[in-house]
């Protein structure tokens, strides 16, 4: 076996035989996916019961709203309002000329919010376009919105999982190999440093691809309902680039830290806040503008964006090139820092 292959193999075996690493790299992010998926997908599909009084153009002309709205027709507004007050329905809607009126309950804030959101969007679109055909189109978008959570969450969680795996893999290997004198032993063997590093890269990329396969497999199960777009496989170069940049971050953490505990701490300190600030778990749409600006200095933000683009936004293969370039640029800079911090020995 070539030194590259035997070293990658040694590292992979070391990884698979470490139950804790396997758990935190593969199962832990998957638990997040299941959790987010279960919590948010249910909320998305459960319908809101509303009452329609008289003809309501946006409702009458839209199709597909049945996914989120359960519409009942009544003629008496006052009686209908009473029914909402009783808690049997979430809201009453009626149209008077150009005025849409929505009476909703304060008791079920979540559903009422959903309904308000739906109508806000429907009417907004009606105002903007003013062409009846657009309603059909918008109705579909609303339907998509109820599924959007898993679509949004999967790429984000995947890039988080890969970042964690790569950072911890690199940091831990570096620190424990230094502590256990494996690095000194390798230094005494006629093997090039680049071979050792590329073996570690090879092992990490292999782990990341397995993570990706498992992740997408689970998210695509009917119960989660992830729907990948045509060029989803373009996420593979993103995964590899992400692995490289986060390994470099791990090498920096491992270069600074003396113990594996310290390395784990530093790695968490870098990756976790970055995940939040990069919109990995929650979209940054609602975040203040400065947060969105700052998020651009994080490689994970670009990893997220690229993944979203190709996996669910249905963008073409070329669309990831800018993000890919940015990520690799980060990798180069951080990698150089890692080389400067590299030590064979504790002392």
């Amino acid at each position, binding site marked *: 076996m070539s030194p590259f292959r*035997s070293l990658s193999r040694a590292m992979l075996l070391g990884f698979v035989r470490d139950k804790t690493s396997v758990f935190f790299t593969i199962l832990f992010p998957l638990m997040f996916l299941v959790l987010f998926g279960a919590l948010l997908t249910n909320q998305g599909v459960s319908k809101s019961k509303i009452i329609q009084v008289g003809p309501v153009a946006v409702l009458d002309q839209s199709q597909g709203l049945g996914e989120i709205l359960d519409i009942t027709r009544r003629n008496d507004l006052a009686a209908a309002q009473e029914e909402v007050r009783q808690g049997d329905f979430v809201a009453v809607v009626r149209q008077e000329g150009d005025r849409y009126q929505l009476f909703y309950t304060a008791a079920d804030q979540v559903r009422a919010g959903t309904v308000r959101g739906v109508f806000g969007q429907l009417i907004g679109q009606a105002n903007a376009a003013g062409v009846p055909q657009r309603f059909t189109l918008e109705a579909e978008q609303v339907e998509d919105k109820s599924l959007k959570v898993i679509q949004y969450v999967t790429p984000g969680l995947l890039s988080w999982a890969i970042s964690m795996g790569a950072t911890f893999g690199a940091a831990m290997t570096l620190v424990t190999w230094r502590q*256990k004198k494996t690095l000194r032993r390798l230094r*005494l*063997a006629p093997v090039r440093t680049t071979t050792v590093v590329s073996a570690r890269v090879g092992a990490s990329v292999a782990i990341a691809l397995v993570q990706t396969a498992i992740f997408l497999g689970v998210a695509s199960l009917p119960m989660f309902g992830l729907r990948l777009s045509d060029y989803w496989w373009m996420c593979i170069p993103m995964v590899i680039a992400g692995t490289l940049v986060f390994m470099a971050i791990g090498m920096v953490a491992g270069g600074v830290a003396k113990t594996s505990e310290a390395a784990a701490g530093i790695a968490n300190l870098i990756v976790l806040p970055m995940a939040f600030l990069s919109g990995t778990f929650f979209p940054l749409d609602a975040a203040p503008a400065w947060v969105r600006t700052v998020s651009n200095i994080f490689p994970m933000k670009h990893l997220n964006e690229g993944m979203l683009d190709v996996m669910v936004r249905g963008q073409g293969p070329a669309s990831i090139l800018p993000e890919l370039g940015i990520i690799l640029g980060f990798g180069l800079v951080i990698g150089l820092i890692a080389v400067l911090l590299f030590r064979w020995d504790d002392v």
Partner: protein
Amino acid sequence: MGQTIIVQDLRKRYGDVHAVDGVSFSVEQGEFFGILGPNGAGKTTTLEIIEGLRQADAGTVEVLGMSPWPRNPRLLPKIGVQLQASSFFERLTAREQIRTFASLYGIPARKADEMLTVVGLEDKAGTQSEKLSGGQAQRLSIACALVHDPEVLFLDEPSASLDPQARRNLWDLLRSINSTGRTVVLTTHYLDEAESLCDRVAIMDHGKILELGPPAALVRGLDSATHISLATGVVAVAAAQELAGPDATVTDDGVSLTIATRTPAPVLAELAERNLLTGIQVRGATLEDVFLHLTGREYRA
């Protein structure tokens, strides 16, 4: 014969500690060379500088005509190193460890497995290195150092944590490696190990070489007393003193009575005449005495 290792005026400081303080020696090709000394003497530091793991503050090192520092990829395949702390890949079995190391030198797996047998670990081949006993790990570490047939072998306390049987086996192995013309350099705490294996020994303490030469010559040059011990009570101290003459020193620690004398032959003859030879022990001078003589301290391993 050529000089395999030439070390000149080597120095290394750690803060205030002069770990190596002006060490010079050379090792000939095919020689079995030992560095002997107590904890903290500077043995490991000296060895690591020669192997190219550390940079000396001053002095020069040449191994097989090459400089080991900075990392010299042409030299590395020709030397084999067993580090004082065992250095393995995490969670690999003994067989996987040695095969991985072998592959770094382009050695086939079959050869690696053979080496495992040579150190008597074939039945532990499937055990993860973390689960080997101290002595087994030590043997694996030595096997990993030998797997590529190095011309020069460095061993840092190879017999530490080995049981007496494994120690004998290791000695046999090292002798047979040395007899095929390879140069072996080892550090040890054990005087008997140095005496039994080494062609020449450097006795080191406080970063300096105190004495260097073949063990027998060091001991002979000492002109020290021979110790004759009998069980306490066999003969009285006064009687023993009289029997051994005024030059001898007689001590009794309650277990054995020891006569230290520079002329053992007449004393032994006298004891034989009185039929007192049963259970007698005669011990000539050892490296321990050399050490005591050099430092004025008892040797503590």
